[in-house]
């Protein structure tokens, strides 16, 4: 067996299942139950990465989410690439392929290491900016190589073959973490009857109990875990989510959980029963109560060269030995400030390897575990610490010295002990990241030497997450938190019996963060605080000397705790160093804030199934199929897909948009065209006060509109600015059908409701959306009546009995229809409303009869040209929230003498809305008829004026008119209504200056005769 560090027995791996995997191009063997990290350690792989800034070789440092070094690029195929996966969190599977995230050309022989060396012994914070900024023009060149060298992982260049999704979850109690506290809390809450979700980020639930030396009810701790998990999984009210990280905690107990469903099985999700599985899932949980049982992270000590491969966390050593059957070295030196870390030495010795010494910073270590270590003959050097590691690509020795903690100095000489592994422990930091996401600041607890969370309403921390560490106490704390949560959620507490745990006598820990060195920090070998971001103790000293005294500033200057690391190992040590340098206490330096996400979440999970064809809803009309078959080009209008134009094949060539639109325009002006206008918003308004209400929300008068008649209306906000328009038909004295712009449908309905509900509830009126009920088609052009006569029954279409702005009921193609004589083209027009289920039949019948009249389907572009020729506005295109009805020259649509002060009226007499030089709507006729002005182009009066030129207005709509055989535009120009006939200029980016004449915005049929025929 080539797994030289694999123990012959022990651990929770399945030795009967051997798995093959590739790391940096080399193939290794591991076992089912391994993580990538444990398998790499088993195979004696020391260097797994190069560091971010100094490009120093790095090895596996931890065993869980706090791992700062072992970030890998995962994926055997291009499409399956996943960057920044922590090897400690990636389950091993057969065929797993991973590479180091950093290191170019490779981790063993790294060119960037030179940069680190060239920069001298110390690259201060801001090194890259200070060194490579000059000359500025070269930064792009430098950056390319620095980036390549630094490496931040890379995204795949092919699209992801896997599927991802979201799931909305609701529960009474969400328990985050399934260690002793979490399992106890879940059991207590579940037995009380609450709906419980338990999320745990690891491959297996159980947390620290999976590598504990302790006995629960005289049985190995993992047996209690197995029994408890089994009990929970048998309960209907419990959802267990392993491999699921609570990555973000948001307002009102909204927690996002990232569940990795197949990442432990293969590169891409394998089929299950022949069906595709979801690779990972984001649970969006709304929880009544949340129990944070997230445990604690061990703090490493900060000493010289503490980043050389072979330096590890003490607890990680225990985890690898006990959980994975891997001893990550032969000769261990342990440097500690507390009793609990002694487990590493005991586990190491029991695995049959040598513990060279334990450097204990305390003067008289005497706890139970200390005694056990002594009994095993392990040398304990009291009052000392590892001050410096030796070795380049792997630890070769540890230099130990006596330290004066109060004086922060080394006392006396030092001793160098040969070893290949240095494990350290400076105590434990409760994992308060999620509690921090809520915005609550943690409090420093001097006794615990750590920050404990202050939780907001509905959240409680339990166990290690709030500094309760002894197993028996943790279990009890969990039960209490679970019962409290259930009780707060309205359930009566069940009784939960806890296993007996022998109480362990631990000696008191001491506060030790950065270990003193004989040399001053700036000259000592690098002492790393944040291994992922390459932040050193010296860097923090420099930052504080340069005036960055608040820890938030230190963070930003040094990058400590940035990125995917989120300060899991380094933040407290960094704060302690800043505090020491500034001569303050840790809480005086500040509290630390963590942000989502706790660990990275893939884009796939964030996106879920909101991608590709499901990225955004597409709304279709009842005639959509027909448009698709006719080869229509579509335009997005809000979420609607509307035919933009219908290109035809002429002489084997497909028309351009320009050609198609010209043809469609002429068809309407000369024969007859048809538009699918179903997308217009339609609001059914009923009630005795409907008419009064319309008078208040529209600028014009509604008091006398008779049943059977239709009127155009303009809507303003109370600031006097136009925001929508449309026609409203009087169906009955108490009954109106309002139409809105396509994009304005929902907004207008909400607008009517807000006024009704909050200002005028005394008006008896109801509004209902009937947009989707009716399909609407506009038949327009000189031949429209002839076509209508062929397909319409039960209606007299005679021009004198069915006049412009009338509406009538009848049948079109045998289908009950409401027909409205309204026109947005300026031509004779009929707008037909039929129930949408019959619409395609009606549409096709019209075409069956329409050929001889030249019936031509037209799209939104032609509609725009035709309406602009008539000077009809489109709200949102020709208006932008700063245009009044007067600015539009629509004085005729303003009922100043209406009795009620309608919405917008008062504002029209404010000084700003009534001044003379407001931008007013005009037409523009380019002097060169071939020119089509650019929409948005700025208008000036003197093109030779020095820059900046005074801008007099801008183009809002501009097209080529095949009828006028010229370009033409609508525009707003300061004081434009009094500038008719004047010449203006439009300077373009390419240096051209267009010349145009200000004209009336009505370019065609100014008297409106064509629509009345």
């Amino acid at each position, binding site marked *: 067996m080539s797994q030289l560090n694999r123990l012959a027995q022990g651990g929770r791996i399945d030795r009967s299942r051997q798995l093959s995997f590739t790391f940096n191009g080399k193939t290794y063997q591991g076992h089912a139950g391994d993580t990538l990290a444990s398998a790499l350690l088993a195979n004696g792989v020391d260097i797994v990465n190069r560091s971010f800034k100094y490009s120093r070789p790095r090895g596996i440092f931890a065993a869980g989410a706090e791992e700062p070094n072992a970030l890998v690029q995962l994926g055997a195929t291009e499409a399956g690439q996943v960057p920044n996966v922590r090897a400690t969190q990636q389950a091993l599977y057969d065929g797993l392929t991973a590479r180091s995230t950093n290191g170019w050309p490779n981790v063993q022989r790294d060119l960037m290491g030179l940069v680190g060396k060239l920069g001298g012994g110390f690259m201060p914070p801001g090194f890259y900016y200070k060194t490579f900024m000059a000359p500025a023009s070269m930064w792009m060149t430098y950056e390319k190589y620095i980036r390549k060298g630094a490496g931040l992982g890379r995204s795949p260049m092919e699209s992801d073959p896997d599927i991802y999704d979201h799931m*909305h979850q609701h529960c009474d109690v969400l328990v985050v973490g399934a260690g002793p506290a979490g399992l106890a809390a879940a059991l207590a809450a579940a037995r009380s009857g609450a709906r419980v979700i338990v999320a745990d980020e690891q491959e297996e639930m159980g947390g620290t109990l999976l590598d504990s030396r302790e006995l629960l009810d005289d049985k190995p701790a993992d047996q209690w875990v197995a029994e408890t998990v089994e009990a929970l999984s048998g309960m209907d009210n419990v959802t267990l989510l392993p491999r699921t990280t609570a990555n973000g905690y948001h307002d009102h107990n909204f927690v996002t959980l990232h569940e990795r469903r197949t990442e432990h099985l293969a590169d891409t999700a394998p089929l299950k029963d022949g069906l595709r599985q979801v690779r990972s899932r984001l649970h969006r949980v709304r929880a009544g109560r949340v129990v944070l049982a997230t445990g604690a992270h061990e703090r490493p000590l900060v000493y010289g060269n503490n980043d050389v491969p072979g330096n590890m966390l003490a607890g990680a050593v225990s985890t690898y030995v006990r959980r994975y059957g891997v001893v990550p070295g032969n000769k261990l030196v342990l440097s500690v400030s507390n009793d609990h870390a002694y487990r590493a030495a005991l586990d190491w010795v029991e695995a049959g390897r040598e513990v060279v010494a334990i450097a204990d910073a305390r003067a008289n270590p005497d706890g139970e575990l200390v005694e056990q270590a002594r009994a095993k003959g392990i040398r304990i050097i009291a009052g000392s610490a590892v001050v410096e590691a030796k070795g380049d690509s792997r630890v070769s020795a540890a230099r130990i010295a006596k330290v004066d903690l109060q004086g922060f100095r080394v006392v006396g000489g030092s001793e160098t002990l040969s070893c290949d592994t240095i494990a350290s422990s400076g105590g434990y930091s409760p994992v308060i990241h999620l509690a921090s996401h809520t915005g609550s600041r943690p409090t420093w607890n001097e006794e615990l030497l750590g920050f404990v969370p202050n939780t907001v309403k509905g959240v409680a921390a339990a166990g290690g997450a709030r500094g309760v560490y002894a197993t028996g106490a943790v279990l009890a704390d969990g039960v209490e938190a679970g019962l409290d949560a259930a009780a707060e959620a309205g359930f009566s507490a069940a009784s939960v019996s806890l296993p007996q745990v022998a109480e362990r006598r631990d000696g008191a820990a001491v506060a030790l963060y950065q270990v003193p060195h004989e040399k001053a920090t700036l000259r000592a070998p690098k002492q790393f605080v944040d291994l992922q971001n390459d932040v050193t103790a010296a860097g923090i000293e420099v930052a504080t000397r340069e005036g960055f005294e608040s820890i938030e500033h230190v963070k930003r200057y040094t990058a400590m705790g940035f990125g995917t690391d989120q300060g899991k190992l380094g933040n407290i040590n960094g704060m302690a160093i800043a505090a020491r340098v500034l001569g303050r206490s840790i809480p005086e330096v500040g509290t630390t804030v963590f942000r989502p996400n706790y660990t990275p979440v893939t884009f796939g999970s964030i996106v879920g199934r909101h991608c590709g064809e499901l990225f955004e*809803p597409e*709304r279709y009309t009842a005639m959509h199929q027909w448009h698709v078959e006719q080869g229509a080009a579509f335009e997005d209008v809000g979420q609607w897909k509307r035919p933009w134009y219908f290109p035809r094949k002429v002489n084997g060539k497909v028309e351009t948009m320009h050609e198609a639109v010209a043809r469609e325009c002429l068809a309407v002006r000369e024969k007859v065209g048809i538009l699918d206008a179903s997308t217009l918003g339609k609001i059914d308004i*009923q009630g005795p006060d409907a008419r009064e209400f319309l008078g208040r929300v529209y600028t014009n008068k509604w008091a006398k509109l008779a049943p059977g008649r239709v009127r155009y209306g303009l809507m303003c906000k109370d600031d006097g600015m136009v925001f929508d328009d449309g026609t409203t038909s009087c169906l009955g004295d108490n009954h109106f059908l309002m139409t809105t712009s396509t994009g304005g449908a929902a907004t207008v309905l909400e607008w009517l409701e807000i006024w009704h509900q909050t200002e005028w509830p005394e008006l008896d009126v*109801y509004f209902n959306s009937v947009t989707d*009920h009716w399909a609407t088609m506009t038949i327009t052009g000189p031949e429209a009546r002839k076509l209508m006569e062929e397909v319409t029954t039960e209606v007299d279409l005679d021009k004198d009995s069915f006049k412009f702005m009338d509406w009538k009921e009848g049948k079109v193609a045998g289908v009950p229809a409401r027909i409205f004589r309204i026109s947005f083209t300026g031509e004779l027009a009929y707008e037909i409303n039929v129930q*949408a289920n019959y619409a395609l039949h009606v549409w096709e019948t019209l075409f069956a009869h329409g050929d001889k009249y030249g019936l031509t389907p037209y799209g939104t572009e032609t509609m725009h040209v035709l309406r602009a020729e008539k000077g009809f506005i489109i709200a949102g295109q020709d208006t932008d929230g700063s245009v009044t009805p007067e600015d539009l020259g629509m004085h005729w649509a303003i009922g100043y003498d209406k009795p009620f002060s309608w919405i917008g009226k008062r504002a029209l007499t404010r000084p700003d809305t009534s001044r003379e030089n407001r931008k007013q709507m005009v037409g523009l006729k380019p002097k060169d008829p071939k020119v089509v002005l650019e929409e948005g182009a700025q208008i000036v009066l003197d093109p030779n004026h020095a820059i900046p030129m005074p801008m007099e207005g801008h183009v809002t709509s501009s097209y080529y008119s095949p009828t006028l055989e010229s370009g033409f535009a609508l525009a707003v120009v300061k004081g434009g209504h009094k500038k008719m006939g004047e010449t203006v200029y439009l300077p373009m980016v390419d240096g051209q200056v267009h010349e145009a004449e200000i004209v009336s915005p009505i370019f065609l049929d100014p008297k409106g005769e064509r629509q009345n025929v």
Partner: protein
Amino acid sequence: MSNVATFDTHTEAKIPVESPLTYSYRRSGAPAPTAKSRVVMREKAFLGHLVLRGGAVVLDGAVRAVLGISLPGEPQGLVLDDEGQRSIQWISPDEWLVIVPGGEEFELENRLRAALGDAHFAISNVSGGQTLVELEGEAAREVLMKSVVYDVHPSHFPVGKGVTTIFAKTTVVLRRPSEERWELVVRRSFADYTYRWLLDAGEEYAIGVER
């Protein structure tokens, strides 16, 4: 209420009729249910849909007299007649959704109007504007959990409940007429999006479409 124009938009004429999902069947297909299918979808097309507005007290008597079922006065209430063919659902303190077999809606509207007389109320026919999609099967709830933000756990969403809520990036009226079935009232223009979403979300449960 008087002075309102009623209009029967329904016709029995023998002409092609297209439900909101007709286009979707052509475009995306409709996988037939198999033995593996843990969820089945079916459209109940061409039903009569009426929006009923007014005060609960005013409407209740008329609804009982005309439909023979009482108006659900409590929020989220859904009441069905004995055959399960006609239903009325609370939408808002002054709004109910009535769904009846297709073709009944106009007569129902007229009878309700007659019963309500001069009271202040409104009835809007929206039969062409929405359709009803049914989900059935053991995985139906999971498909819904992927789609709607509302809690569909049986303890929170018992039979006889209905809500308007978010469905993916659109909206839906979701209701539970029986233990086995969920109903989604979907707006016509969003029906294709909803259909494609359900096919996609149901893929891992081998969703089938009954037609």
